[in-house]
């Protein structure tokens, strides 16, 4: 009975989601918090919610985190 769960997850929307514009505007700060071991999702809940739902922004997040970690 779990066949529709992926569709349900995709269709689920969270009002805390800040959208691409706000998430990308703060992405450098968010990534540095994570790179330094802080709980970025707790501080920027709406950004974390957005990154969990938006494939393109999540891709940018992973790219920036990889770049910062490569420097450390």
């Amino acid at each position, binding site marked *: 009975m779990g*066949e529709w769960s992926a569709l349900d997850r995709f269709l689920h929307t969270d009002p805390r989601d800040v959208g691409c514009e706000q998430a990308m505007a703060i992405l450098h700060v968010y990534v540095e918090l994570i790179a330094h071991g802080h709980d970025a999702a707790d501080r920027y809940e709406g950004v974390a919610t957005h990154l969990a739902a938006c494939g393109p922004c999540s891709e940018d997040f992973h790219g920036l985190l990889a770049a910062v970690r490569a420097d450390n």
Partner: protein
Amino acid sequence: MSVKTLDGESHEWLRALGCARDRERNAALARLHEMLLRIARAEVRRRSPSVDISGPELDDLAHQAAADAMAITSKLVTFRGESRFTTWAYRFVILEVSMKLGRHFWREHGISFDPGDWDRLPDRFGINPAHEAEGRDLAAAVREAVDGELTERQREVFVAIIVNGAPLDAVVVELGTNRNAIYKMMFDARRKLRAALVANGYLGANDARHVDG
């Protein structure tokens, strides 16, 4: 945040990039470009398994992204020191890589807003091909909700991205808009579709349980 509170490396970047002496400023610009190109190349390599570009074309894309990201030199006043300067700069070039990959897809494949092949929908949502009947039910239920609940533009974008599999950033190029606008459109469409599927008994109201339809 004032420049005085910046870390030493960030402060040095800002000082050199704003230097009145051409020689020193040009050297800083060259270092910045070299850094942005290094990040762009790493990013296109990281993404290469999921895009249909490789070799010299991928390197060209990295060069273009780095060149366009140099526009940050006109935005230095917007750097508020909330992160290291390098992290702030990396963000621009990573976003440039995304935009260029979206444009590449759009140029090579175009965007189809045709209703397309709804039979592909079950596969997109991971339904086991062996469960053919359930897949057909899902496709039919979603299509009915899409036709009945969404605006014409929401339908087009849903079909392009979800049914026909176009990257969101390529749809952005096609429609001459921005990622946030398309995401918001899809956000509203997802909310309406879920409400319709819940009302029709296909999905549970509060969680990801499937309700037999």
